[in-house]
């Protein structure tokens, strides 16, 4: 048994954290919220992360990638979550994964090298209506030209390629096809979401798209869970640090047992859940029969925890925590995004129950 990160994985996270510390501090992220108008992606930071190699992680070596695993992608997602990085990582890697998992040789050869190199930006359009995220709930069809509405699509406006969930599996829709994009006034301005209306768009089906669906959905769940862990842990650290510094009644508030227990509760909810998201990522890589169940559990538990921890973070900070200026609201809004995308914790728990064969 070796349930830990390798030296290479630790080094990957360290160097990514260094890059983000230098280029994506809290002030930088606040700018995304303070800039009026539609939310935008941070193209400069994304270019740096592309140069760092993030889009190549999960792409096989023969297609110009690094050929690494889900656990590697997940620890990267955790780190991006900790820094609330305003980059189109999630949609891009999921779209890339869809082609890795379901593309024909020709489709892989055509798209993967450019996606791995970050020459193109891609995303995925899965959800419909109020909360129809699972393939058996999708109503759009690519049998003829693609028509209908997809919701909560990450950075569709900037994307060159959209992988669309359809009844037949997965369809590729290129920029310029017949669709319109409307940017939502989304809570989380670090990861803009769009409503995409397809109006007879040309869509090319991924050859093995249908078979790729379960792994794609699981990957989405795991990456969200990992982001949630990174964000929640950051909130715990932030609250603990603040308690050691802020003084009331002539001493630091870290001395007050009531507050200490609030901080302990946050840490107790967060820290052990690391094992769950690691396991979900590892199962995706190595224990296929457990993967969907673990992914649904991780998504439910981690996003539920994250949102609550951001609420607790506000309480632990007092008035400053309730302001627009403070970092907490950025994390709460990312937690809201993580909570909703791919369905609420309740939906994912009921799915996990089905998958457990109960």
């Amino acid at each position: 048994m070796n349930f830990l990160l390798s030296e290479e994985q630790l080094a990957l996270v360290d160097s990514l954290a260094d890059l983000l510390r230098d280029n994506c501090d809290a002030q930088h992220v606040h700018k995304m919220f303070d800039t009026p108008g539609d939310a935008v992606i941070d193209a400069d930071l994304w270019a740096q992360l592309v140069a760092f190699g993030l889009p190549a992680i999960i792409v096989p070596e023969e297609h110009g990638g690094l050929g690494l695993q889900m656990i590697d992608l997940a620890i990267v997602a955790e780190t991006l979550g900790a820094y609330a990085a305003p980059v189109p990582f999630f949609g891009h890697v999921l779209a890339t994964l869809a082609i890795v998992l379901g593309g024909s040789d020709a489709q892989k050869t055509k798209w993967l090298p450019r996606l791995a190199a970050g020459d193109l930006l891609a995303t995925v359009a899965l959800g419909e209506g109020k909360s129809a995220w699972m393939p058996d709930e999708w109503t759009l069809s690519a049998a003829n030209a693609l028509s209908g509405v997809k919701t909560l699509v990450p950075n569709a406006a900037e994307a060159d390629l959209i992988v669309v969930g359809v009844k037949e599996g997965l369809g590729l829709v290129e920029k310029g096809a017949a669709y319109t994009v409307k940017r939502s006034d989304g809570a989380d301005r670090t990861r803009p979401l769009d409503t995409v209306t397809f109006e007879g768009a040309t869509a090319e089906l991924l050859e093995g798209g249908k078979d790729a669906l379960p792994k794609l959905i699981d990957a989405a769940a795991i990456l969200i869970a990992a982001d949630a862990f990174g964000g929640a842990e950051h909130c715990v650290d932030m609250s603990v640090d603040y308690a050691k510094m802020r003084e009331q009644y002539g001493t630091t508030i870290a001395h007050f047992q009531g507050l200490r227990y609030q901080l302990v509760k946050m840490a107790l909810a967060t820290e052990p859940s690391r094992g769950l998201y690691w396991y979900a990522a590892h199962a995706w890589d190595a224990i296929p029969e457990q993967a969907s169940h673990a992914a649904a559990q991780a998504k439910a538990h981690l996003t539920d925890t994250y949102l609550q921890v951001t609420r607790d973070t506000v309480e632990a900070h007092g008035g400053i925590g309730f302001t627009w200026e403070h970092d907490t609201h950025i994390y709460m809004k990312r937690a809201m995004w993580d909570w909703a995308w791919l369905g609420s914790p309740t939906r994912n728990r009921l799915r996990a129950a089905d998958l457990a064969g109960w």
Partner: protein
Amino acid sequence: MELGFGPEYDSFREEVRAFIKAHWPPADGNPKSRENERAFVIAATEAGYMHRSIPKRFGGSEQEPDIIKAEIIREELTKARAPAGRIPGNGLVVPTLLEWGTEEQKERFIAPTLRGDILWAQGFSEPNAGSDLAALRTKAELVGDKWIINGQKIWTTHAHKATHMFCLVRTEPDAPKHQGISYLLVDIRQPGVTVRPLIQMTRQLEFNEVFFDNAETPADMLVGERGKGWNVTRSTLKHERSGIATMTWSLSMFRDLVKLAKEVERDGKPAIQNPRIREELAAIQGELMSLTYSTYRATSHDVHDRDIGRFQTMPKIYMTELAGRIAKLARDIVENDFVDFGGEKLKWIERFMISLSMSIAGGTSNIQRNIIAERSLGLPRDHHGGKAAA
């Protein structure tokens, strides 16, 4: 990253399985008999599967330390419902004796303890010394070559069955609180010791009051130095919290809960199909998986000498809260049976209460919170707490 144990361990697991199969359940089919349990523990120790860290000359099997082998043995014993060789109290005193005892104490006590011929009670808590254990007042005076003991212990688990007690007593009345305490071994089957059982809220009889009225123990029954008992205790307390045992126990309780939810009907269907129950069951499983895989992570970090980080201090309270949540869902499933002590769901009524004893014994949940606050979060020392009691 690798969760399996690898081929060399697969063959070890096969060996353990074959051994258990040959020895358990016992030939006469009675798994409850103490003789059968004793015979199994002795055989397993000879085979090298039990008491692995204890030298052969003290009745152990003296194996190379290997956390993974230990885990495999534990898993296989649990699966076969075979005795684990752990007798409460005994598991706490043996490591303490190994670390602090004199050669004579080790020779005299360890082997019979492992065989179950000596049963120990833990005499730490007193009526006025619970979480604040160092406030204890039971005193011992050295008169000639004997300690004369007077005072009272309370909540002493199994004292009514035990032959001996390891206890903390005040030997230096003028020294500061923590420096006046000594660790003594006492034969409690003597006229100066009175054991009075206390009935638990479960109606079971497990813990006791123990009164010392000029009770005696030889001078050489002191473990560690005089006045240094507090340090000796810290190693006992360290052994009280084992992450893996914690996890194995929670997993088996959860399996029972799923079984219950499938068996009991609600509105003409198995309760597990009720959405609220189904969702809560899944939520509990999410926490259990967090505990399980964080424990594997911690174990792997231990093996590779890496810092476990914040999780180190968390398993006890995490399991306590999980056990409470499991017990409450069972309550919601059994409904009216919840008030029937004579019914077949008694086990769950008991668990509803026993899950609370976990939040008290071995250091209360608040004391765990104090420890997490200081050691895992690095909050300033709180002079009112943070020291774990028994």
